[in-house]
């Protein structure tokens, strides 16, 4: 992604993160302090409605632009529901619902999610592990109305929300929709699987960003830290570990871009997204392990910022389908096409 529009949008996002997403911001957010200045700046710049068409009150940016912003957000471990607000805005806009202001999230996030909209206009069901639910002003809910799918815009205030968190300390809450009345409901062509695909592409991109960050941190730490009379960067074993980390970072980035491109199309190619979530998920685990090894005991402290990225890597790789889930789907696709179509499958989907 290198054209001029991308660069301006990413530069804007990066400047905001540099100024307002500091290590203390991230630690405070984990303690429950809402990073208001950061969120307000993102919202004022229009980045939070990147995937909403202009006539629906959004920025009307390309899917690719939104993904590029999410890579930057991943780099900075931004402790706000930017990814979730982008997805919610997209889901609402696809159904023709204008984006409300404020932070948003989506539900359900699991493949077996089931929220029903009854004839009385009330919702029934609950969603587990909804990201940032307690911080959201509204939730975009993909609901079942009889045999049809619809998008319901639901105000979050007044919903019973029980708090839980990801292993990165980000809110992952259980939300009960029983008896709630949506502000708006519109039919949609999106199903739960499409939402899972978009979520997987989004998390792949955030993983790619966080991996870039830990490579940068690990290289710098190896140059700064001296042992046995020289920087540990001079030891071949450390160099080779970092070279391996660089490979994982590059692979995750390439895979995430593949998924982002697939999401620019209409069908959200399942093969591309599966490839991305499997490869980025593997890179997340492999990469975090190397970064911690290079940082030694220092990187295992809460005081050091390495865990801002590594704990998110471990949490993001699980969400919207982990490597096992997507690898199984991918393998089934390849098997159904057969051995003689394996190579054409690879060239078609990369």
């Amino acid at each position, binding site marked *: *992604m*290198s054209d001029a529009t991308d660069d301006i949008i990413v530069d804007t996002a990066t400047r905001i993160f540099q100024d307002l997403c500091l290590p203390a911001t991230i630690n405070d957010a984990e303690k429950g302090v809402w990073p208001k200045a950061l969120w307000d700046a993102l919202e004022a710049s229009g980045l939070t409605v990147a995937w909403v068409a202009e006539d629906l009150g959004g920025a009307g940016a390309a899917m690719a632009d939104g993904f590029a912003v999410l890579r930057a957000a991943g780099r900075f471990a931004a402790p706000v529901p930017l990814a979730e607000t982008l997805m919610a805005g997209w889901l609402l806009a696809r159904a023709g619902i204008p984006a409300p202001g404020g932070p948003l999230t989506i539900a359900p996030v699991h493949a077996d999610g089931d929220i029903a909209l009854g004839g009385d206009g009330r919702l029934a069901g609950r969603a587990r592990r909804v990201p940032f639910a307690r911080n959201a002003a509204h939730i975009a809910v993909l609901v079942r109305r009889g045999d049809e799918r619809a998008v319901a815009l639901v105000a979050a205030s007044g919903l019973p929300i029980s708090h839980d968190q990801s292993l990165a300390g980000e809110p992952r809450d259980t939300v009960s929709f029983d008896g709630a009345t949506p502000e708006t409901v519109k039919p949609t062509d999106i199903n739960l699987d499409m939402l899972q695909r978009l979520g997987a592409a989004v998390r792949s991109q955030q993983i790619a960003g966080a991996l*870039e960050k830990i*490579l*940068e941190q690990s*290289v*710098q730490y*190896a*140059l700064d830290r001296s042992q046995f009379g020289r920087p540990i*960067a*001079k030891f*071949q074993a*450390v*160099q*080779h570990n*970092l*070279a*391996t980390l*660089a*490979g994982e*970072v*590059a*692979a995750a*980035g*390439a*895979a995430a*871009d*593949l998924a982002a*491109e697939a999401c620019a199309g209409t069908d959200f190619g399942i*093969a591309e997204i*599966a*490839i991305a979530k*499997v*490869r980025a998920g*593997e890179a997340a685990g492999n990469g975090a392990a190397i970064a911690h090894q290079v940082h030694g005991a220092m990187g295992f402290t809460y005081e050091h910022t390495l865990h801002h990225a590594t704990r998110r890597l471990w949490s993001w790789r699980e969400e919207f389908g982990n*490597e*096992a889930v*997507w*690898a*199984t*789907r*991918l*393998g*089934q*696709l*390849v*098997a*159904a096409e*057969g*051995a003689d179509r*394996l*190579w*054409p*499958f*690879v*060239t078609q*989907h*990369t």
Partner: protein
Amino acid sequence: MTTSFRFDPAELPPEARELRQEVRAFLAAEAEAGTFSPHRGKGGFSREFSRKLGARGWIGMTWPKKYGGHERSQLERYVVTEELLAAHAPTRAHSTADRQSGPVILRYGQEEIRQQILPRIAAGELCFCIGLSEPNSGSDVFAASTRATKTDGGWLVNGRKIWTSNAHEADYMIALLRTSPSTKENRRHGLTQFLVEMKTPGIATRPIINLTGGHDFNEVVFDDAFLPDSHLIGEVDMAWKQATDELAYERSGPDRWIETLSALTELVRVAGDEPSEHLAEGIGRQIAHLATLRRMSLSVAGMLQAGKTPAVESAVVKDLGTNFEQALPDKVRLLAPPPGDAQPDGNDDRFEEALRYTTLIAPKLTIQGGTREVLRGIIARGLGLR
């Protein structure tokens, strides 16, 4: 500070897509005619097959027309290369010349030699080998000691090259020879590239049989072999400057991640169209690696086409790619349904053959063309660690 490397997305132009279909149709017809067996996965050596490719314009594709080339893009060349490799077509008679030797001659060779040699490579008529390693100079390429001494009208060569693939079949070698001692300031100084005609008196080639029982590499002994002045490639003593970009071409191509593909293809065949979840997951993981590598490799081709020299990115692709292709037979082995007497012979035999072959060649994949350790050193330098 940004330490991550750049892999710009590359999009194949429409003409490359048409070309892919042409290559696939050609390969299907050749496989049908029994020219080669895709599942055998050995590539193989066939001058006849190379000449057919030359006639179709699929060798020297990016070179100028005046040297027999076709002035097509790096991306088109990439498509042809990956299709040939994925089908395990017999390309060994021309692949080294097409990938490395031809471009070196084009860039640094003397005009007379370019005119004489390049059209014949492009026609698929010439096989090349590369004379780099020596008994005491393996990964440490710039320690080469095989000597070229100036004499009347040319150079006299004495010494030994080893692990030289295809030397016993090759018409020519591009050799790295010592013309001066290295200097205190630059230990890479003093080496020069030469074109060597393998029929030159004073050159003896001896086979070294590898662990598969096959004959690929050789020892080549030089005993006062005479090379004419016209065979000097580039500047005397300055080969180290020429070798760097050559490696960008060598290291990122599909041959660095595709060599054991037959094991995965045949696993999918024995798996059938509804494999167990465990097997599907195993296949899916390997496909994810393969597809990602292909994207990265294509990206490097795109950057080369755009006039960049992504040397470190190439090393990254080769390191990831060779580790993947080396590990693949072992992953496949453990995923395969257990052998049994009730299984139909055909597919099971193809699978066994592919698995045996890829298991046996696996060790060399992270050694040839720059060891894993050398590559990681290059990447570490790119990261600013050394």
